[in-house]
């Protein structure tokens, strides 16, 4: 997520003692090594999912009919869990976070990319001069004083000229959510039922709807190909000589463990419970829904949790059905801080159950996530609040493990404590 976590990043400072003596427990080094192996496995699966999406998008562009569009949308939905499960790696691993913005930035001002319904979206936005730049319809753009030649829509144009154009983070030109918008279009139903309903003919050169189908096709193709490239780069971070793995293993092992817990705690607390769930609940705002075009938010939240649990237990079912297992933080904590470990483990299960309840309700077709956060939806609000509360408890449980392991932990109230200049920036 592009929104930087600020509040309550679990900043873990080392001050670690006596992890390696106990016989049954894995060493901290072994846990860190298995974490990096899991990173490789997870990002390889995310990459495989994106490649499947790429195949479906290519097939759709070859034959732009509603059936092929449905297949492409399904490929997007099917690919998401594999990416979402990796999100526990994002915080704490700087090399991962550096690439994350291109891959999963959100929320986005979709008017940058394509046509929008102005009656719902609005005409202008003070903070974003490119709010309705609609690059698909405009081969020439101006960003401030800089002219952008967008006659050819390429990966380079998206990544270098349009992504965060003008320094506005809502100018998301690349990644999962840009592709999501291109496949579904705007969800104009607010907190009512239904997702986006973009017609397949938006990509049909022979019977083009909404104009500029050639450019829309080029955009979808470039964005999808770029996602595959970027996920390949993310997977490469975890190879034997990959940047993320090297950064992790060259630290003292205690600091490596701290990185793992930083990822789990930060995603649980400020990011997922806070920015992605509680904020939307307070505002009752469907725009605050993570996968807002496709109505897939219940899955994206659920698989964040599944990924965090997999990291905690070093047990992960891969895309090919095989199981990854390795030395886990749970094993290590069971030896060194058994009470906190058992408690935290139960909190992971409890959170999974709450997130599953959200997912099951959405999957049943009875109520989508954007409806759950609607004002006055007592049942839906309670479901989401249950998830938030469980995630906060899980974060507290992680904190207890961290302190039980003798790691020193400083729970930040806000990133602004460290850097007030970040406060005003999205």
């Amino acid at each position, binding site marked *: 997520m592009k*929104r930087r976590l*600020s*509040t*309550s990043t679990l900043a873990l400072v080392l001050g670690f003692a006596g992890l390696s003596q106990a016989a049954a427990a894995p060493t901290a080094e072994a846990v860190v090594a298995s974490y990096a192996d899991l990173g490789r496995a997870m990002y390889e699966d995310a990459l495989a999912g994106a490649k499947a999406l790429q195949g479906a998008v290519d097939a759709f562009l070859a034959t732009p009919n509603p059936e092929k569009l449905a297949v492409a949308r399904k490929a997007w939905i099917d690919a998401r869990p594999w990416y979402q499960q990796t999100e526990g790696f994002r915080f704490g691993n700087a090399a991962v976070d550096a690439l994350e913005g291109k891959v999963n930035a959100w929320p986005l001002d979709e008017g940058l990319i394509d046509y929008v319904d102005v*009656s*719902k*979206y*609005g005409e202008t*936005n*003070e*903070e974003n001069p490119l709010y309705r730049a609609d690059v698909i319809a405009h081969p020439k753009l101006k960003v401030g004083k800089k002219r952008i030649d967008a006659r050819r829509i390429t990966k380079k144009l998206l990544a270098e000229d349009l992504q965060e154009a003008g320094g506005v983070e809502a100018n998301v030109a690349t990644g999962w959510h840009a592709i999501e918008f291109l496949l579904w279009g705007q969800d*104009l139903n*607010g907190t009512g039922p239904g997702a986006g309903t973009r017609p397949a003919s938006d990509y049909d050169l022979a019977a083009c709807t909404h104009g500029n189908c050639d450019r829309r096709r080029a955009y979808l193709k470039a964005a999808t190909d770029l996602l595959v490239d970027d996920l390949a780069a993310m997977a490469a971070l975890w190879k034997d000589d990959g940047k993320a793995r090297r950064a992790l293993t060259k630290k003292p092992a205690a600091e490596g463990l701290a990185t793992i817990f930083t990822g789990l705690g930060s995603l649980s*607390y*400020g990011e997922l*419970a*806070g*920015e992605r769930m*509680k*904020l939307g609940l*307070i*505002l*009752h*705002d*469907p*725009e*605050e829904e993570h996968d807002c075009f496709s109505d897939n938010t219940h899955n994206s939240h659920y698989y964040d949790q599944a990924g965090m649990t997999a990291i905690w237990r070093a047990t992960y079912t891969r895309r090919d059905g095989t199981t990854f297992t390795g030395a886990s933080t749970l094993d290590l904590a069971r030896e060194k801080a058994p009470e906190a470990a058992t408690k935290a483990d139960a909190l992971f299960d409890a959170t999974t159950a709450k997130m599953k309840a959200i997912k099951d309700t959405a999957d049943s077709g009875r109520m989508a996530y954007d409806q759950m956060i609607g*004002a*006055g939806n007592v049942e839906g609000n309670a479901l989401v609040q249950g998830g*938030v*509360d469980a995630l*906060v*408890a899980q974060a507290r449980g992680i904190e207890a493990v961290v302190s039980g392991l003798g790691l020193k932990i400083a729970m930040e*109230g*806000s990133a*602004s*404590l460290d850097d*007030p*200049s*970040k*406060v*005003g*920036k*999205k």
Partner: protein
Amino acid sequence: MPAAIVVAGLVSGPAAALDETIGRAMFRRAWVPAPSATKSDDGLGPLFDARACVACHPAGDRPIVTFDRDGAATTRGLVVRLARPDGAPDPVYGRQVQHEAATGVPVEAMIAVAPDHRSVAGRRLARPVARLADLAYGPLAADTRVSLRLAPPLFGLAAIEDVPDEAIRALAAKQAAAGGEVRGRVSEVIDETGTPRVGRFGFKAQQIDLGRQTAEAFSTDMGMSSPWRPAAAGDCTTGQPACRAAPQGAPDRAGPHEIDAAIVASIVAFLRTLPVPRGTASAEAGKGERVFVAVGCAACHGGDLGGAPPLRSDLLLHDLGEGLSSGHGEGSAGAREWRTAPLAGLGHATARAAGLLHDGRARTVEEAILWHDGEARGARDRFVARPAADRRALLAFLASL
């Protein structure tokens, strides 16, 4: 509104978890006029000066306001306050000139700022004066006074909020007993339950806590209602029918207000996390602190009320003379009275070359000192009379805060 609502969001515990995260998002959120597709966002205006908190408080800091050739501000953060000599709002324009409006509602006025040069303590200094043009709702009342306010920095507010009322009252009593040139006055505010409280937020110390100050900013600056400022049309008066008749936000939300108590509480929680930025240490600062005390600055800007770093404000109202007068009272403060500005973080402001004092008129700390008059005149004159090296040391001390 019951005070308990404010408190509820501020207690620590599971209910308050995540409040700072949410508050930070709310602080940056751009609200939109009603009606809009996203009901959650609407309710801005109909008259407003900004769409988001962050627009006037960039990164929580003082804004650096720039102007075009005609004197119109090209950035946000400077607003025009209106009041009659007794502190009552203008009968038509209300308490502030809002320079933007929702579609279909006339904008109140065009605002231009011009410098007014004066001789102050032997130096030629300028203060900004607001000129209003294209007044859309007729002239101001004959006795309405116009004054400017620069958005204040939002750092270290928790330390101010946490000072007990008694500590502030005790300082006032101490100054009165001393019988010196400085005699601060408590800003007496009666809260909704009829309890006398000590005002401490705002240039005139009109607000008793951050919840009310936040609600005030939502109402006056953004035209949004909250439990503490329930008027949906904000600063629109009965003399502005188009504004009163414009659509208001909130019907889709749980409560009757455009901004509910939980949102205010989250913003307060966020604001309370903003720390005071550090100043620039220097070898001369130690000597400068001695000069600071010796000339009498510490009589008001002392460290009595604690804080880390020290607030360096007695949070009392002082008469600062005619040169700084706003021309009208506000709350319990008179036209010439201002709350002692906390000096914590002044070094950061100096380093940014941000404008100081209530309207940003002082380009340097030295200019700000020179503008001090009234109760502070003695200290100001003793500062001016000091040798250059002492003055330099004092400024170095202030830059270190």
